[in-house]
């Protein structure tokens, strides 16, 4: 950093003070001599002169210099032979030495005191500045206010007009910045060369970036750059190391305030999102739950009607249709409830080891209830397979997949279920294969998306709002497994394949 241009001036001032004090000491010396005051007092007057010189000039160089000159002056004027630098009485040499040493020590001490005083004053300024800055920063309600506070504080400290340019969340400089003007005014100015600034600052890791117009002090946030403090170059050039350090400290305080603000914002956003999610989930759950009771009545009564009527009776078919539709509705309700259970943040996936064939048997029972004539073939390893899972949810997955297969299957065709152990990946693979028309190639990538029904509307398509497969996807993923669908290579039909880990994964 450049020295403050007053240094040279200070040296001149110091010399003047020195000459003046030593001259005065000499005159006082002569006065003392004339009134017959002992010589020793003259020595002390010179030491006093050194003290004054050291006190009122900067740097201890002056102190040392003045001690030597004081000694020489005393020698010149007050020791025989007078007006010469030689000495007759060798005892004076001791006097000179002690005088010099005393003067030097005095000078040094004084200088040190001055230095300490100066440092203490600086520390006080530093503390005050930081104190006020931090105070205002904690009261600031948004980024603009933080920037404004920073600008005025740093401007006040450096006694020049500083600017503050904020960066947005993505690390791009904003289009306007705050500029301090004379008389505690602040104005908003348009940022020039936004792209250039961004490039320049992007990979900077230093405290300051020196440019033609501004010295830019980056405000480093926890994860990215939050802004720049711009000090006009004309003033910045003259800053001392100490001032730079303090500006840097202030900038870090500003960074803390900005980070805290963004942190709070993010936190509130997440809370809001979570609360909305919870509300939606609760709504779904309440509705689904409330649907169960009337469904039970409809299903029960329609079943009674079926059993009370003869097969040839038209009531028999009507009641059967009512029953089937109610059953479909119930399947939907179960799916929605599974979904809300998964989405519930309080829900903990059960990790108990369950027997695969048991869970599968429940799903098969469910399907046989709806499609009594459906033939289901199962191929699985001889020994029982136990894997960690939430049995209810996996049963739901299997039920949904089997239901899907049954819907697409041609009459009299079976559904083939294959369960395999994949030793290499430590997974169990479930394959459900139907003998239908296969899946439309266009639909394949979207099958597991929520509400996806499919491009081709088949003639007797069983309606669906497309959540069955999406729920399978969510459940499998929650178990750290994979799920996919594809058309069979050998013969017609589609295959749905999902895997589940054999051991609990450390998440």
């Amino acid at each position, binding site marked *: 950093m450049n020295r403050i241009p007053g240094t040279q001036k200070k040296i001149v001032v110091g010399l003047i003070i020195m000459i003046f004090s030593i001259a005065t000491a000499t005159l006082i010396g002569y006065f003392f001599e004339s009134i017959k005051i002992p010589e020793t007092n003259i020595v002390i007057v010179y030491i006093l002169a050194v003290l004054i010189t050291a006190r009122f000039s900067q740097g201890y160089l002056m102190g040392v210099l003045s001690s030597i000159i004081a000694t020489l002056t005393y020698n010149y004027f007050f020791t025989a032979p007078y007006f010469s630098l030689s000495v007759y009485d060798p005892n004076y040499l001791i006097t000179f030495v002690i005088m010099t040493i005393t003067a030097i020590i005095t000078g040094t001490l004084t200088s040190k005191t001055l230095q300490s005083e100066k440092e203490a004053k600086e520390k006080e300024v530093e503390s005050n500045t930081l104190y006020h800055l931090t105070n205002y920063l904690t009261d600031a309600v948004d980024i603009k206010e933080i920037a404004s506070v920073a600008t005025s504080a740093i401007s006040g400290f450096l006694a020049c007009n500083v600017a503050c340019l904020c960066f947005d969340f993505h690390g791009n400089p904003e289009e306007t910045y705050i500029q301090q003007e004379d008389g505690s005014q602040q104005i908003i100015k348009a940022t020039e060369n936004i792209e250039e600034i961004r490039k320049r600052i992007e990979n900077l890791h230093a405290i300051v970036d020196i440019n033609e117009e501004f010295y830019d002090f980056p405000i480093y946030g926890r994860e990215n750059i939050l802004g720049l403090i711009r000090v006009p170059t004309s003033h910045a050039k003259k800053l001392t190391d100490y001032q730079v350090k303090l500006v840097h400290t202030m900038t870090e305080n500003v960074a803390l305030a900005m980070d805290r603000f963004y942190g709070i914002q993010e936190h509130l956003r997440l809370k809001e999102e979570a609360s909305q999610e919870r509300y939606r989930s609760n709504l779904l759950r309440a509705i689904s739950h409330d649907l169960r009771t009337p469904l039970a009545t409809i*299903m*029960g009564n329609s*079943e009674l009607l079926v059993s009370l009527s003869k097969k040839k009776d038209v009531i028999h078919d009507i009641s059967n249709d009512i029953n089937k539709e109610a059953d479909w509705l119930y399947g939907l309700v179960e799916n929605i409830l599974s979904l809300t259970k998964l989405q519930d943040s309080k829900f903990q996936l059960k990790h108990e*080891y369950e027997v695969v*064939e048991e869970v599968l048997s*429940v799903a*098969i029972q469910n399907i046989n209830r709806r499609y009594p004539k459906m033939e289901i073939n199962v191929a699985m390893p001889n020994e029982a397979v*136990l894997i960690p899972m939430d049995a209810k949810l996996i049963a739901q997955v299997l039920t949904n997949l089997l239901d899907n297969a049954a819907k697409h299957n041609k009459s009299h065709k079976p559904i083939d279920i294959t369960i395999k152990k994949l030793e290499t990946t430590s997974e169990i693979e479930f394959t459900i294969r139907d003998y239908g028309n296969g899946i439309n190639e266009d639909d394949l990538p979207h099958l597991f998306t929520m509400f996806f029904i499919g491009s081709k509307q088949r003639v007797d398509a069983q309606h669906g709002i497309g959540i069955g497969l999406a729920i399978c996807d969510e459940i499998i993923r929650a178990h750290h497994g994979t799920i996919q669908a594809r058309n069979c290579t050998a013969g017609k039909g589609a295959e749905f394949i999902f895997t589940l880990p054999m051991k609990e994964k450390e998440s």
Partner: protein
Amino acid sequence: MTVKTRILIVEDDNKISNFISFALQQEGFITLAAKNGQTALSLLVSEQIDIMLLDLGLPDFDGMEVLRKIREWSEIPVIIVSARDQDKEKAMALDAGADDYLTKPFSVTELLARVRVALRHFYRQNNQKIQNTIKVKNLEINFEKRLVYLADKEIHLTPLEYSLLSLFFKNVGKVLTTSYIIKEVWGVGYGEDTQALRALMAGLRRKIEQNPAKPIYLLTEIGVGYRLIDE
């Protein structure tokens, strides 16, 4: 049965109560209805009731409380009715003395089956007649000889497997909770060692079922336990 069986239906929803009543009446039962726990308990005391259907989600009393109160002085069969995702509640109720459960919505067939099984079990228990052999479809157990036959061919079971199967046979058609089975087969103090039970069930299943994934004898009731079915 010359005397008609009397069923108490404890259900606060009118319409469900009606359809259950109607279905049971069709089968020759006499039905009584209570809308809440209080009425249920008073009816139990004042009327002759042979079997009870208890909804767990009653407005005044917690269904469990009613069950506990009843079990303090009555052994009549109780079938609890609950909504789907309350497995823990079902298991708890069964362990607290309920005989079986139904999940809403249920089919009439299921309802009738459960009622029949519960009554049969109740009468058998009170009959004190010891049956030497019990046969379910092609599976037969001989308690005296401690042998089990599948399609008249003897099958070899380990002692634990035999214990397990005989427990099921003594409760044909009834659901048995996991904790109950563990207590009966291994003894008190084995707590929640469901793994051992699962492994034992898997072994037993392979010996008596043609296809373990499509069992005709031993059904799994997820979250609750197992059941040996006879129909």
